[in-house]
């Protein structure tokens, strides 16, 4: 038992626990907060995988921006706040059976995946390596992503705007 295994066990238990709590908690806000726990523990797992920059981006984007946006979505829509109606048991059973089959199939595939030797230099100056990679090999995708973000921004504003504003 070294530290890496203990950290991996704790973080993965926390992330699975958050995701399972999402399924079984009744209030919508509590579901969202339990998923924030999952996102934070995934950031810790990225640190274990020597991806510090991705971990920081995960905390900023997922635990910060996306969850705040979802909380705003909950606030701006009216809820009875609890799921009063009992869940559809038959549909849950069928979906669960399908997902278990999927799990078994992918698990069988994972056991056969070959793995290479791990490189020792992935964690040295992680952000610098990512910057060099992005701005020397992936410049065009980087620029295209900015166009995608602009389109999503304009589309979100257009969709969420109150109707009747455009008759000015």
């Amino acid at each position, binding site marked *: 038992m070294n530290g890496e295994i203990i950290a991996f066990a704790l973080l993965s238990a926390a992330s699975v626990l958050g995701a399972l709590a999402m399924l079984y908690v009744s209030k919508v806000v509590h579901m969202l907060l339990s998923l924030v726990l999952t*996102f934070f523990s995934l950031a810790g797992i990225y640190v274990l*995988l020597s*991806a510090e920059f991705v971990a920081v981006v995960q905390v900023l984007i997922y635990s910060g921006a996306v969850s705040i*946006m979802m909380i705003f*979505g909950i606030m*701006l829509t009216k809820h009875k706040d609890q799921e009063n109606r009992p869940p559809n048991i038959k549909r849950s059973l069928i979906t669960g059976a399908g997902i278990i089959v999927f799990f078994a199939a992918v698990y069988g595939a994972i056991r056969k995946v070959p*793995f*290479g030797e791990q490189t020792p230099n992935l964690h040295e100056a992680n952000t610098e390596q990512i910057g060099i990679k992005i701005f020397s090999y992936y410049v065009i995708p980087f620029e295209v992503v900015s166009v995608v*973000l602009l389109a999503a921004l304009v589309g979100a504003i257009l969709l969420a705007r109150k109707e009747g504003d455009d008759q000015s």
Partner: protein
Amino acid sequence: MSSVPAQGYLILALILFCIGLFGALTKRNTIIVLISIELMLNAVNLNLVAFSKYGINPNMTGQVFSLFSITIAAAEAAVGIAILLSLYRNRRTVHIDEMDTLKH
């Protein structure tokens, strides 16, 4: 040689993906469906980062790819919330089984 086997990360990602898929298919609240999709995307990102360290040819590309994927996921969440708000304004519901205008 007692580090975490790479299969551990893949199996964790598989479990999270399955939970997200179950939530996305069975939950009635649209916001929870959206956040379950985010959970599934997160599991895929974990796979990308794991392969960038333990894959056949380990290098930085997996991490860069996961950064792009996080960006697209954030844009998708923003557009999804906007669609949800506009739908709520018209139909006064957030429950996904009441959004069935295309069926009638």
